[in-house]
């Protein structure tokens, strides 16, 4: 019986290739067209924008054409402000993200695994987590004035709860089999938490961290709203007050690109960090 059932699957897989060739070539053509369209997408969009603005279909002062935006950006870079703004914003994002992530992971492992910590922090965190970080801008100004600490604090606040929650849930979802295997091998409690539980939850934690990358850029905007002397969103605000719409669009573009790069960069990093997933 067993000997008979074995070779069957191999036979079933055989008699198909003839029709598949044609389908594949048609599929390949469609795929090539789609690639061409996706390459042309951005230039087409920019061209359409330029034409619409130049044709005075919209007010060119409010919707400056790409050439004007490019000019404004060139001026921005040449003045040296761009580098200063970029560095200031990146420093806030990185500092807030790192602090928020480290604290979020540590507290998440504790609340996810140890009932006492869950009971202690759970209710408070569930109450504070839904408050939008932007809402803290007024109190942050009172607490920290215009100092950098307040801006880092806002980013930290946004990142912390996201990372905490994903770690907490990830830790609770860790395969019981892995925990039991580690227990029967004599793994001491501390090593269980910071090696087996933490790495077992890593695939879920990484999802939370990636969400937190985007959140840190949202909260950066709130942070620079709270009064700043440099920064990408600070520059957008200043340009708005001076009706320099080209500069406004340039700032938006840089924010978008930076956020995109950070997200993709983190995704690539995460694939290496949790390579076993």
């Amino acid at each position, binding site marked *: 019986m067993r000997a008979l059932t074995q070779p069957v699957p191999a036979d079933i897989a055989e008699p198909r290739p003839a029709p598949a060739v044609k389908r594949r070539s048609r599929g390949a053509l469609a795929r090539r067209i789609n690639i061409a369209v996706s390459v042309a997408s951005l230039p087409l969009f920019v061209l359409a924008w330029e034409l619409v603005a130049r044709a005075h279909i919209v007010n060119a002062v409010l919707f400056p054409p790409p050439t004007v935006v490019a000019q404004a950006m060139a001026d921005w870079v040449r003045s040296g402000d761009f580098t200063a703004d970029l560095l200031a914003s990146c420093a806030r994002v990185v500092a807030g993200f790192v602090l928020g992530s480290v604290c979020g992971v540590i507290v998440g492992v504790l609340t996810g695994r140890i009932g006492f910590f869950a009971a202690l922090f759970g209710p408070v965190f569930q109450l504070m987590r839904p408050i939008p970080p932007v809402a803290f801008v007024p109190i942050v100004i009172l607490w920290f004035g215009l100092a950098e600490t307040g801006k880092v604090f806002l980013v930290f606040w946004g990142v912390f709860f996201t990372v905490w929650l994903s770690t907490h849930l990830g830790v609770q979802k860790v395969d019981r*089999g*892995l925990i*039991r*295997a580690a227990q*029967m*091998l*004599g*793994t001491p409690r501390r090593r269980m938490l910071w090696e087996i539980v933490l790495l077992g939850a890593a695939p879920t934690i990484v999802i939370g961290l990636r969400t937190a990358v985007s959140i840190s850029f949202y909260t950066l905007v709130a942070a620079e709203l709270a009064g700043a002397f440099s920064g990408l969103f600070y520059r957008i605000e200043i340009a708005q007050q001076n009706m320099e719409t080209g500069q406004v669009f340039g700032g938006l573009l840089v924010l978008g690109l930076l956020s995109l790069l950070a997200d993709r960069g983190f995704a690539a990093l995460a694939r290496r960090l949790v390579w*076993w997933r």
Partner: protein
Amino acid sequence: MSAAIEVDDVTIAFDTAKGLLLAVDRVSFQVRRGEFVCLLGPSGCGKSTLLNAIAGFERPYAGHVRVGGAEVTAPGPDRGVVFQQPNLFPWKSVRANIAHGPRVRGASRAEAGAIADRLIATVGLTRFADASPHTLSGGMQQRVAIARALANEPEILLMDEPFGALDAQTRAIMQENLLQLWSSISATVVFVTHDIEEAILLADRVIVMTAGPGRILETLEVGLERPRAVEASADPRFVALKRHCFELIRRESAQAFEKSAA
């Protein structure tokens, strides 16, 4: 003669939405030092639950489980466990998985590595020492899991349907490998299975259990000489034992069926 494992009037129950569910009902047996015992029974008969109680993952509702005379209260490195799923640490190489036990118990990196390399050779995976577990087949992963459980040199090896998820050919090879491995160590083994032939092939003694709630139906001495190979299944005594087990389980499940139909 001292018993390696004593299961003394053990009852295990689970809290469920419908109230207490009795999984194991007043079961008693002893396992001698160096003995290979199989717990045989249909799924849901509490045999895995009983094994978990010996391992220290479950606490009995009533009764006592003693290992080497001491009450079991928690899992420990004196009892190696091989699970139905390999449960290997996916972020560790084969070598690091096997070295984990000795490492967390204080062995140096070199000592633990030497232990791991010796066991890797024993289970025939030298070429895969640095491989990641997910690149191995199910049978190979289970060999790593056995090596990992043996790395602490436990006096007791607990195996919970370790070959249940493998295909028939691989399972037969793994059974022979296990018998060979066991003959070279002195461990006491409790092996849970629902496969009658597997139980008779491996065990010195087969404890046949019934389902809902789990009780011991009968204990059979196998008495076939060792070393055994898969060919032992043609031996008339093997066939007779198999038929006997089959009858026991069939009669029991027919009764259970009538009870549930009534």
